[in-house]
């Protein structure tokens, strides 16, 4: 049976990259950074302005009426839910630092691009970074819903959102590349054993 054309191209591409993996890894890493700056960052701002902001403003419950939804010019990838009693025109970032103000930020930020650059450098022929991207997109979508629940109905959802976007995302973003790296090296107690 003839080899499918796509598989043949994939194999030859892997061979070409395999000859100079560090060179290609570096090129992919630079391309990843460029794509992040040129595509992902504008997409994050668009998401905050055209998806998250209208969604949060559309939540109309007695609890949501206690909040003002705002964005900060200096932090355009974020949306803030400020308690109405505290909304005095000050910078929402400052209010968030003081506590009581919830901050939603668009997914696929630095916590994606840094591990993704590492992954394309170490595994230039493997699209592991797509797994990470998928994780960030799913968590981003879920976290938007969780934030909306916190805004409209259930205060602890803000805390769940915060946990998801901090420790959970931080640990997953760093642990996934680490485990893949260790698996490739066969190092560490969790590294898979090679068949004898």
């Amino acid at each position: 049976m003839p080899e499918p054309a796509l598989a043949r191209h994939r194999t030859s591409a892997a061979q070409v990259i395999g000859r100079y993996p560090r060179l290609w890894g570096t090129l992919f890493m630079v391309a990843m950074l460029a794509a992040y700056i040129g595509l992902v960052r504008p997409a994050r701002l668009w998401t905050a302005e055209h998806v998250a902001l209208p969604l949060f403003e559309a939540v109309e419950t007695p609890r949501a009426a206690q909040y003002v939804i705002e964005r900060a010019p200096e932090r355009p990838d974020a949306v803030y839910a400020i308690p109405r009693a505290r909304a005095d025109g000050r910078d929402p970032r400052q209010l968030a630092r003081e506590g009581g103000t919830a901050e939603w930020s668009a997914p696929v930020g630095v916590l994606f691009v840094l591990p993704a650059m590492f992954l394309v450098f170490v595994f230039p022929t493997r699209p592991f970074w797509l797994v990470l991207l998928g994780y960030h997109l799913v968590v981003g979508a879920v976290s938007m819903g969780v934030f909306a629940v916190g805004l409209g109905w259930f205060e602890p959802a803000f805390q769940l959102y915060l946990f998801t976007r901090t420790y959970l995302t931080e640990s997953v973003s760093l642990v996934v590349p680490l485990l893949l790296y260790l698996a490739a090296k066969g190092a560490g107690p969790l590294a898979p054993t090679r068949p004898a």
Partner: protein
Amino acid sequence: MPDAARSFLDTHRALSLFLLKMAAIYAAWFVLYDLWLLPDGRLDAWLSTSVASWTGAVLRPFYPGTLVDVRTVWAKPGIGIRIENGCNGLSALSLFIGFVVAYPGTWARRAWFIPMGLAAIVLTNIARCALLLVVSDKWPEIFGEVHALHALFVFYLVIFALWVLWANVGGSPKPDARPPSATPPAEPSGTRPVLAGA
């Protein structure tokens, strides 16, 4: 339990245990911090004032007029930074400790590795704060970008490097309990992974 989940747990017992332990530790820390440490304020205040004080000490040879006012470090009049709770590195410290405790290793090695890692992260934060003050003085127009991006990059690089180090030096309390697992991802021959070679 579905067969697929049971099969995964059987063949990746150590990995599953590690992930569950890590999630539990971070959840416990999050609750502890949110319910007690943050409202109490003393731990954050101590860490912030310490980082401010040490940053001042680092800067003084270069900026003789450096002043430290509780959480605020002034390199010169009008050039200062305030170490807020979110900037004192506490979350980075907990992120580091959570992994080291969850990832297999001996407690004897944890006893020296955790303090060493904490010191490395605190030193990183002091260097970051000092650098931010220099940027604020010399290139104030890029302060915001440096504050937002550089800090994260540096923190995560240091934490990642420490995690890799721990995975290699932590040892295993039960070396014979290593579970069989999937074949590791193959790379083209000649690929030698290099940590953060970029």
